[in-house]
């Protein structure tokens, strides 16, 4: 980030750290962030964000996690005195938005309908994400000529640098699995090394996990496109053009040559 980075861009960058727990991809990349609008006033600077999902009936627990994580990512920024995150077009939007704003927790938000928070759910999907990333990393090695029986004896440090390796390391850290160079590559959810004779079977299941997650991601992206189209992103009345980071701006920043004249 440079000194000239706008507040809206900072907000956007914070939102890019929030993943859809089920699809294991950033909500900004998935098109779930409709707009992040910065409000500057004497009383303080704030940001309000609008989120949208592929269907009206997307699971309320995952929706809640994304709204709450987005809120936490924004309030952690010292630039902002306040943050508001609003989910739109969803059956439980009202409850979720109010619950996150009031920091009620999930059980408090859905009183009588939930018996706990979402830590276990999140953990389950982090385990799946780890398995899928492990499969992608191993598949790349196998494609490059590695032998499957070598995987059990390979350390993370021996895996050549790649995007797959980076994302595997990130998932291991999220799960609390050691990820230093001398630790074994092929480990279970607790970080224990998998014996050579079990690698093939586990890799086979990991592939099914990866196919499942990739498939769901494609389905959700498709439904979001069907629901909202690829048309222009509506502007929030409250912000000026410069103050609003939208999906289009984000894409333009990544591909400066393709920026449209405005």
């Amino acid at each position, binding site marked *: 980030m440079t000194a000239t980075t706008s507040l809206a861009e900072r907000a956007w960058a914070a939102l890019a750290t929030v993943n859809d727990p089920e699809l294991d991809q950033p909500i900004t990349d998935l098109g779930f962030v409709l707009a992040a609008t910065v409000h500057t006033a004497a009383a303080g600077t704030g940001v309000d964000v609008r989120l949208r999902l592929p269907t009206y009936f997307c699971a309320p627990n995952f929706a809640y996690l994304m709204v709450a994580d987005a809120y936490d990512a924004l309030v952690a920024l010292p630039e902002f005195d306040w943050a508001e995150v609003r989910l739109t077009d969803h059956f439980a939007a009202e409850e979720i938005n109010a619950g996150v704003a009031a920091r009620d927790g999930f059980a408090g938000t859905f009183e009588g309908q939930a018996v706990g928070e979402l830590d276990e759910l999140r953990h389950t999907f982090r385990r799946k994400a780890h398995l899928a990333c492990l499969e992608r990393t191993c598949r790349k090695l196998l494609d490059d000529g590695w032998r499957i029986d070598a995987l059990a004896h390979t350390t993370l440090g021996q895996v050549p640098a790649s995007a797959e390796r980076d994302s595997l390391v990130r998932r291991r850290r999220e799960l609390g699995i050691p990820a230093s160079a001398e630790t074994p590559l092929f480990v279970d959810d607790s970080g224990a090394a998998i014996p050579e004779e079990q690698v093939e079977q586990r890799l086979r299941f990991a592939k099914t*996990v990866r196919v499942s997650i990739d498939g769901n991601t*494609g389905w959700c992206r498709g439904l979001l496109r069907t629901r909202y189209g690829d048309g222009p992103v509506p502007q929030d009345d409250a912000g000026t053009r410069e103050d609003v980071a939208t999906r289009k701006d984000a894409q333009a920043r990544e591909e400066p040559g393709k920026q449209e004249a405005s």
Partner: protein
Amino acid sequence: MYTKDGENYFIVDSHVHLWDGSPENQANRYGKGFIECFYDYHRNLSPEEWVWPLEKFEKYGEATLMKDLFEDGYVDKAIFQPTYLTDFFTNGFNTTEQDGFLAERHPDKFIVNGAWDPRDGEAGLAALERLAQRWNLRGVKLYTAEWKGSSKGWKLTDDWSYRYLEKCQELGIRNIHVHKGPTIYPLNRDAFDVADVDDVATAFPELNFIIEHVGLPRLEDFCWIATQEPNVYGGLAVAMPFIHSRPRYFAQVLMELLYWLDENRITFASDYAIWHPKWLIEKFVDFQVPEDMQGEYGTLTPDVKRKILGVNAAKLYDIEVPREAAVPDEVTDSTEAVGSAPAVPA
């Protein structure tokens, strides 16, 4: 019956609906949201020329259904899977009775399945008995995400669910179609989790559990359970239409299923009227695993397609398959890559 390149295919569409999602029947914003969600599924995965206007999709009626399934769609037998949703739609979205009255007007075309909800307690058990008697039920469709007052769903392992499964066994209702959705009680749990199927499939070995949408979006969990439980089946509703927009993904899902289960436990379904069986069947019969994936997954034979399109469901429901579309029993290998037979319970 569908015939292509000298091969005959007997078609059982294992999951069809006659619904009323029209504004007149919508009880609240949830009903509107529900049918619009279905409509997005329909628009997103259908070839352009098969997309209906929303008004038609909301309520298409008997004549359209009969023409689409049996005149145009090659279907020999269709299985009605009711979806009540009485909290969302005033007269229900699609009830056993609505299906049943239509089926009676067209003998031999349909199988009418019922439904139950463990939250209906003792009264529901008696109602199930009456329903089974009236419609000669051999199957039920359960929707675990159904809302009922403040409850947003239930699990197959709930105490009352066991009572209903016992009742099914007693009434000769052998086929339990399980449909997961986005909500459950308690809401902090993963509503799509199919782990409860594992428990009831073990507890009721004489019942068949057909998991609709092959467990999607939890394909891996479904495969893991189905490989260990020989009475667990996968219904291809929702997976089928990917054959058009994402054929490589479709190939992956189907071949993963064939790897973990076997070709005898996968059944074709259109989920009509979300998708039209005609294009699904035509594309499926023409379908082959993409060449660069064949080394890993093997190929699909006409016999495997015959089993999936009709023979497997025919076995579940004792439907007679014409000789010209039958599959000899000795054919069991679906692909070169089949890796695991179902584990036999100890």
